[in-house]
């Protein structure tokens, strides 16, 4: 009953980004992994494997009728909320650098539960907003219940703590609300209500404010909070137009934190120059553009909203990461979709793309 083939452009863009990711993960981690694991291909092998597994998962979901999710959405969301609670229990959640974001699965890569939560949130919100479409303009009946559910997930992720992911989910749900017809006025009003909350968070954890403002003038504290941004700017800047050449990054050796994950784009910029960075940005733009086209042409409101959600989720994360590494916004630990090194996060993100591709098979026109 499918009307057509899936959106070829999105498929192509995502696979291209994955390929760039595999190459860049190798380039940026070969030194550190040969030092740490005595195997310079350590991260490359894993990234390659998870990309292939991810593409398999993407193809699976591409063939799985998205209408099924309407039925399953509440259970999926409850399941992920359970996981979010589990990860907070010491002993189950794996604590790395002070945050517990992962559940250890033995030989498998640890499960980053907030990645599951992101996709399930999009699915659930699409169902909720599609069913309550008439009421979404009503503040109490439409908006407040939706925001209540968002609040639970948001709070659980903040408790890990993982500010970057929490903000991505919040942003995604806001875009979905607007797309389903919620009033801008309501959302802006509610948004301004969160200002005191943000203020409180900053006061209780002063490092956040220091981090928050360091991007404005990283030179004020070059060895402390400004260090990462300065090193990232050095990397991007030394790339120039064409870059130093693949594998030639110097910043990745010693100066850049997390060169394979959060700051992989800086290494890319140093090695491939402005040509490389603008190409990648263009690819994300094409992805976002096509994602919204799918949403516009979806055969029903549920499909439309699920497309908007997944597209926003991935695009927003990419934009935040790019803004962070280019010193345009405060540092939040967030990875670059499809390119940064990642195990379970990569797979769940590709599952999301699979769902998006499935919607594209039902589009009108």
């Amino acid at each position, binding site marked *: 009953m499918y009307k057509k083939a899936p959106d070829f452009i999105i498929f192509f863009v995502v696979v291209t980004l994955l390929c760039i990711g595999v190459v860049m993960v190798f380039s940026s981690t070969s030194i550190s992994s040969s030092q740490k694991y005595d195997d310079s291909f350590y991260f490359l092998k894993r990234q390659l494997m998870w990309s292939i597994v991810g593409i398999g998962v993407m193809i699976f979901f591409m063939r799985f009728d998205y209408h099924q999710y309407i039925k399953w959405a509440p259970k999926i969301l409850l399941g992920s909320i359970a996981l979010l609670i589990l990860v907070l229990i010491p002993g189950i959640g794996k604590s790395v650098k002070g945050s517990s974001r992962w559940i250890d699965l033995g030989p498998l890569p640890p499960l980053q539960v907030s990645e599951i939560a992101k996709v399930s949130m999009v699915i659930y919100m699409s169902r909720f907003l599609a069913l309550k479409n008439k009421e979404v303009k009503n503040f109490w009946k439409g908006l407040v219940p939706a925001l209540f559910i968002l609040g639970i997930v948001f709070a659980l992720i903040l408790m890990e703590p993982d500010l970057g992911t929490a903000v991505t989910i919040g942003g995604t749900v806001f875009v979905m609300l607007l797309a389903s017809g919620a009033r801008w006025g309501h959302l802006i009003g509610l948004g301004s209500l969160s200002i005191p909350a943000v203020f409180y968070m900053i006061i209780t954890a002063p490092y956040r404010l220091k981090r928050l403002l360091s991007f404005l003038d990283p030179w004020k504290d070059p060895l402390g909070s400004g260090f990462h941004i300065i090193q990232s700017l050095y990397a991007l800047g030394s790339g120039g137009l064409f870059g130093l050449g693949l594998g030639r990054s110097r910043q990745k050796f010693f100066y850049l934190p997390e060169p394979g994950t959060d700051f992989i784009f800086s290494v890319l910029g140093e090695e491939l120059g402005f040509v490389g960075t603008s190409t990648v940005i263009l690819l994300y733009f094409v992805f976002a553009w096509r994602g919204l086209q799918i949403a516009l042409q979806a055969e029903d*409101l549920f499909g439309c909203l699920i497309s908007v959600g997944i597209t926003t989720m991935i695009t927003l994360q990419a934009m935040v990461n790019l803004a962070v590494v280019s010193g345009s916004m405060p540092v939040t630990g967030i990875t670059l979709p499809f390119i940064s090194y990642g195990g379970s996060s990569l797979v769940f993100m590709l599952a999301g793309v699979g769902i998006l591709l499935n919607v594209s098979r039902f589009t009108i026109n």
Partner: protein
Amino acid sequence: MIDNNEKRLIPFMLILVAIFLLLIARLYYLQIYQGQRFKELSEGNRTSLRSISAPRGRIYDKNGKVLVSNKLAYTLSIIPEDVEDLDGILEKLNQIMGLDIALAHEKIEKAAKGKTVRLKRNISHEELVLLEENKSELPGVILEETPMREYVYDKLASHVLGYVGEISASELENLSEKGYNVGDIIGKTGLELYYEKYLRGKEGRELVEVNNVREKIRTLGIEEPIAGYDLVLNIDAQLQENVERILAQELDLLTEQAKEDEDIIEPPRGGAVIVTNPYDGSILAMASLPDYNPNLFVGGISQKDWTRLSTDPKKPLLNRAISTSAPSGSIFKIVTGVAGMEELGVKADTEFYDPGYYKTGGVTFRNWSDVGRGKLDFLEAIAWSNNPVFFQLGHQLYKKDRTVLQEYARKFGLGEKTEVDLNNEATGLVPDPEWRRSYFKNNEDKIWYPGYSINLSIGQGNLRTSPIQLVNLVSAVANGGKLYQPLLVDKIVDRDGKLIKDLEPKLLNELSLSKDTLDTIQKGIKAVTTYGTARRTFEDLPITIAGKTGTAQTGKGRPNHGWFAGYAPADNPEIAIVVFIEYGTSSGNTLPIAKEIIKDYFDLDLISEDEGSD
């Protein structure tokens, strides 16, 4: 419905386009417009990340006198990654100031990436001038002021304090995980080594902007180093100084005598004195002679000085107070006496007969005097250090149980480390049948004859003890049977004086001795100085002291070692004291040292002849 959606999504499309355009613009700005500037900065043309050495913790005596501190000295350093022509620069430094190129290469090779490598410490003024004159030809060479160890009173307590030096290749291999790097300063001996992890501190970092010859223009950011923790010692510097002086004077005197007296085969090699508080084992003074000046080591010791110190037959680098391993001689009679009283029921007034020797199984064991004293009681036997009486006790103990005497020796801490807060402490040896079996190859030698126990009973033969063990032994007599871990350090504090660690001495063993035994032994060694072997030395002191001398046979025709172990005042002990003279010929030579130290400590005047006869 679809149309509706289209309208709603239009703002998103616009926002999307806007954000992506902004991102591209930002990257254009960073990579193309500002690219050259960032590139220069990143190539390190304009910045340099330098490490700042942390000052080591200071060492104070118990009264707050600074014994070890830091002064600033110029150090020549280099960050190998920052330098283009490394070989050229090293060559140039070799011409200017004779830098050892091979050594420099070795250091650079082993250094962690991006780290400041210290090539030469304690640059002299002349070298500094030469480097300044040639600095345009030495881009990347860093002249920095770094803290350098200073031993304020030169040789004072040199064995206790120890010295520091640059980390060696083997140390680096063992300690690289603890963040040590090539050229770092590390404690090598003494307290400097034992408390290294407290004294060390934490290195800081400085990001500096530099010019084209890599001179610092300004500091961009700084992470201050954290000074090491300070040590506060139990040592009293004034007492330490006096003890060292008294010991040195006596050793000089004995050396002079040895030159004039042909009977003395050779002069003493050295000596050691320990003064402690018998109630907690805290060490008030610990001297070992000959000594050395630890300041020789701080900027890297010269080959000449090192050869002199390390090949000197008198071994000035050896801390005799803890590393000596020698028979204790008659001091061991305290152990034999205790065992005899506890195991054989000997009392203070038990009568013995001394024919002048002790004979068993065809072997004759002789006294230090050929004339037998005839009848005498146990107290007198201790006071006169009567060998035949203790031979009898030793033999009877052996008959009761072949290892019971050794058990008592171990209860007094012999054959075990005292766990004093210094490395390289001698374990010593309490010989027993088991040891003989495992130590010797020849079957004949594996047998434990009664004669060995008899010899042990007066502290000769294979018994090995150190001054720190004997001061613990005599302290246990003074305090009623408690054996403490002797400690040089009282507490560890930070720069602001906040307590980091309060060192409590461990109770190593508590001997459960009957009151009778304890009283008799205390009386016995008090009698040594009042009417026994050591009476002449101490008779003109206004306080009584308790103690026992010991003469350790060394064999091979060499002079004996001399010992004294005691405490003062005898009835209410404040200090315990051990004196050791290596090849000191006679134990009698230790007595003037003990006397002078006690006189000094209690600030005593001698009783004049008139008053004495009163």
